[in-house]
């Protein structure tokens, strides 16, 4: 039991080692940039260009899924 719990604690610690401060900041910047792109579509592009109005919703959903992937994969350590 003791060996197993040591192994678990070690494995958990190893999971965290792959996320450095640099990579955390990089993911945060990606999340902020994607949100900014969503706002550009919502407040500038969609009201201005009639032709893209019908494709903005799929764009929002794709961007949202990408943000969700970044949070789950990196912040919640599922990628490692």
């Amino acid at each position, binding site marked *: 039991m003791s060996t197993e719990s040591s192994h678990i604690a070690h494995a958990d610690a190893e999971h965290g080692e792959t996320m450095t401060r640099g990579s955390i900041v990089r993911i945060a910047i990606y999340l902020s940039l994607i*949100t900014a792109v969503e706002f550009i579509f919502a407040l500038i592009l969609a009201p201005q260009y009639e032709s893209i109005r019908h494709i903005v919703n799929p764009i929002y959903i794709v961007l949202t899924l990408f943000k969700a992937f970044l949070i789950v994969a990196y912040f919640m350590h599922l990628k490692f």
Partner: protein
Amino acid sequence: MSTAVSEIDEVKTTPWAGGRSPFSVEYGKLMMWFFLLSDAFTFSSLLISYGALRFSATSWPAADKVFQSVPGMYESGKPLVFVGIMTFILILSSVTMVLAVEAGHRMAKKEVTWWMLATVVGGFMFLGCQALEWSHLHGEGFWWGSIPVDSKLQEFFEGVGINHVSAHQFANLFFTITGFHGFHVFTGVIINIVITINVLLGTYEKRGSYLMVEKVGLYWHFVDLVWVFVFTFFYLV
């Protein structure tokens, strides 16, 4: 980095005594994932209900017309700015939380404390913003079972006729879903405060592992994850 496991952590792993632990994950951490999965189903059902009602309605209040105030600064004319600030606060608090987890892996107690405190502050800021937004919408006439008068409602249905049913659905779903999410944020803030106190008391240092910080971190990131979807479906789409 210390990988020593104290007696108390060994006791916590006893549920796996019957065999190998799935995915080599500590018991509490796997249980947190199970809880988050069940919570994800709850939020999914709420958002699917929202989607079903929204897309079966002939008209729906326009988000950029409903949410165009920055409470305390601008009454109107700033569409989605306030929710942008809220989203940025929550993303930042998720970053401070993951930095606390990273510091925990290095057993850096002081850093864990500061990042946890920053996360708590972020949580309070988000809740404050949500309270302001709720009170603003309530002031405009939206609440559970209540919608603004027709002259006001017309502003939110720009270019299409007023639909009282969808306005009611919008109000009910908005307060239910953002309220349920806000309750999660509130709970997360309370848990984060408790964990921060434990960090200050040196509880996890004595255990030789800051795994508990990682577990509450999972919950906090989940709250951020849910907001990403709420933000898209309520404010953008």
